[in-house]
């Protein structure tokens, strides 16, 4: 350790996952937690608690981005994907190539021509759809970028239950920073050099989580879930490959690991969306009643159009799309899926290498 004062670490975004990350970091470092809302900052600093999540004593909430970025070189942006690019634009002038950014956002970014909405567009390609690390590269001069992915349900982390995460980056130093600052005896950290693959695994598994919630809501049993998880895994691997990810990433903690966790958990927001849909609620009212974003909803909207463009067969995504946006009931969608002739189980694995 250097004789100088140790720099604090920053977390941008004080949602439940942002707080979880901040708590993990706070066992080693002073943490500056950014939130936009003054009220919630005051609440956090006063009560050391937010919406039932306890905050570690080493965490200080603030909305002063400028001083955060001046003091911290290691930064964890954990904001919803729809707000990610704006945040990067805002902080871009304050970011320098010595900053290290490790994001924990499991969603996609889209850029569509002005005056158009997503509903006007039939197909989307990788030109319009970006992962969060690509957004960072677009908007800032930061190069040392990484992401967090893996089964990290905020509620369980808050209870100090054992868990693990993947830090993915092209840079070994980013991975070792992630390990150094996050790891403790209840939390294991793995490294992976396939940044895009790991990001996509984390993003795409949310689709299957919604489907799992829907199955649960329809009262289906474990056989159905087994079917869904394995077919869903293959589907997201196909999509991931079309988007330029390495398939191997999907077989690890960030792929299968996260998928199994979210497909069984009522704590998962995406799972909850599927569950309530199956119970007959409308998407709008579900979204309205949730205080945090279920990324999977937006991901389905984007991936439907992306699979059109790349001609990837993605029946689960397509079926969920009709449930979310075309007033098809979950029961009908399930019937549709059961009638598709799947005849080969894992044909693509031959091409893995």
């Amino acid at each position, binding site marked *: 350790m250097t004789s100088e004062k140790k720099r604090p670490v920053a977390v941008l975004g004080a949602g439940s996952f942002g707080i979880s990350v901040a708590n993990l970091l706070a066992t080693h470092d002073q943490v500056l937690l950014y939130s936009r809302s003054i009220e919630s900052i005051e609440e956090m600093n006063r009560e050391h608690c937010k919406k039932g999540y306890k905050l570690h004593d080493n965490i200080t909430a603030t909305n002063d981005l400028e001083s955060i970025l001046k003091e911290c070189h290691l930064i964890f942006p954990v904001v919803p994907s729809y707000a990610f690019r704006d945040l990067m634009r805002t902080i871009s002038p304050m970011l*320098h190539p010595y900053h290290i950014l490790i994001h924990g956002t499991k969603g996609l970014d889209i850029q569509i021509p002005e005056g158009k909405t997503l509903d006007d567009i039939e197909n989307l390609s990788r030109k319009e759809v970006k992962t969060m690390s690509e957004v960072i590269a677009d908007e800032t001069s930061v190069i040392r970028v990484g992401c967090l992915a893996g089964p990290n349900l905020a509620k369980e982390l808050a209870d100090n239950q054992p868990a693990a995460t993947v830090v993915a980056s092209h*840079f070994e130093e980013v991975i070792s920073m992630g390990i150094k600052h996050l790891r403790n005896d209840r939390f294991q950290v793995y490294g992976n050099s396939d940044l895009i693959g790991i990001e996509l695994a984390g993003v795409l598994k949310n689709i299957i989580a919604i489907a799992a919630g829907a199955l649960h809501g329809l009262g289906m049993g474990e056989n159905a879930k087994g079917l869904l998880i394995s077919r869903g895994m293959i589907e997201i691997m196909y999509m991931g490959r079309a988007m330029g990810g390495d398939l191997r990433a999907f077989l690890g903690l960030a792929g299968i690991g996260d998928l199994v966790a979210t497909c069984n958990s009522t704590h998962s927001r995406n799972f909850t969306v599927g569950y309530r849909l199956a119970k007959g609620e409308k998407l709008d009212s579900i979204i309205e009643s949730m205080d945090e974003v279920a990324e999977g909803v937006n991901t389905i909207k984007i991936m439907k159009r992306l699979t059109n463009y790349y001609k990837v067969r993605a029946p689960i995504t397509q079926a969920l799309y009709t449930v979310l946006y075309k007033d098809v009931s979950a029961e009908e969608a399930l019937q549709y899926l059961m009638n598709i002739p799947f005849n080969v189980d894992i044909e693509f694995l031959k091409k893995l290498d």
Partner: protein
Amino acid sequence: MTEEKEDKKRTIWNRKRRYYQPIIKRSKYWPVVLLSKHRKEFIEEVVENTMARINKLRPSKKELIEELETTHYREKQRMRSNPWRVDPPDEKKFWDEIKSELVSISNQPEGKEKAEELLKRIITRYENEISGNFKSSRYRLTRSIVKFGFRRLLNASQVKGIFAIFKTDYYLTDKIQIVGKTKLLRKLAKDNTIVMVPTHFSNLDSILIGWIIHVLGLPPFIYGAGLNLFNIKLFAYFMNSLGAYKVDRRKRNLIYLESLKMYSHNALLKGAHSIFFPGGTRSRSGHVEKSLKRGLLSTAIEAQRSLLMKEETKNRRIIIVPVVINYHFVLEAPSLINDYLKRTGQERYYKEADEYSTSYKIIKFLISFFTKGSNISVSIGKPMDVLGNPVNEKGESIDKHDNTINLADYFTSDDTIIENDQREDEYSKILSKKIVEEYHKSNRVFASHLVAWTAFRYWQRQYPKLDLFGFLRLPEDELEIDYEVFKEEVRIVRDKLYALKKEQKLKMAKHLEGDLDKVIKLGIENVGLYHVNRPLLQVKNKIVTKSLSTLYYYHNRMDGYDL
């Protein structure tokens, strides 16, 4: 504003002679001259640094001895299987001695010193072999020969009559256009170290680039030239005098590769402007380079980091300048493409003939080049820092929002600049990507590329069931296009090119504008001009080919543009 005017007044561009004024007038201040003046000390320094590097990679005595044994074994192999004329006669003796000493060292219990001594002998030998021997008198002589000779030929061909050979109405600059960021390059070369990274299509590239550098008024650059080229006496002379150092592609052992990298690294630190052909070798397929060899690029990155780490050099920048050379005609095209097709493995093609096998052939080519048509254009791409960011006139890096970037920040961890090989390896990937992007943007499409692309794609479309190799095996006389059909096809492609140009994704030669018949005529006349079997010909109102594989080669130039 006034400054700009004054700059113009100082006549950077000599209108009559069409040369830029040299940025450093007296050759004794040229970095490359300083380098060769202190050649001995320089080599000692490089040897020392390489020693340190290998010692870091092979810290124990056992590892070092193993490395030396491997090196000896591979050198033995090379000498047996692939001897060259340039190889020094004492090679065998040298390596035999190394072997016998290695045997005695490994049996002794002592420390590492003896092994290090052997290492030093090997590295010293390598560095002396690599090191160029630049002499400014010879540089000047060569330059005059090139200039004078070419100009005479040029004038003889353009102005009829036997005495025309004494006229000087035509200059080399009529034949070879230089476009792009020339002024910015000249400005940057004054206080920074330039690394020029040209595309590589022909063995003539290095001579051409050498000449371009001279026209731009820049001091000579050093560059690594394949040792095989030194087999040919004429080339050897040119290379030696143009600042070449020698690269032996047969030697792939760690000690040699590190020696080579360190040589280039230290030369950059000394401020020697350098040329890297980052594609490694000439493009076999005719494609503009898509992936680059990162070894040399990482040398530039390491050198920049070393400069930043020292107080007295921290403001000196290594500036990367991508350069695209455009030809209507590449002398080696037929053998290169056959080599490529053979390697991709689907056909048995005839044996490769080396067009450069004799000095006579080269001179013959040069004469036909300068006496017949066929222009060359050289596009100087956007200068960038070692991370691929554009730089301004002061050499400062500029980010996406037009703010300056502090370059040291890229190499900083915990507020200090440190060496980190893995990080810099990733940076070299980023730089490589940026260079390739700039290649595509600076690529200047010629009429010959346009017609080659159009004809090849048209014919390929007629045989949708054949794969590339099946298609290339078709007998040439089965292929023809009616002129009018062809013209329509060319029109469509040209329109697409204009659209790409508007998006600044490529550049187009002036001669592509205007009357389409003229453009087609120019293209067909020039594409692969001197090949025995012409890739495209017009016979009455039909377009035909005499060599589909060569046509494929010229067509590849425009691949990768979404056309």
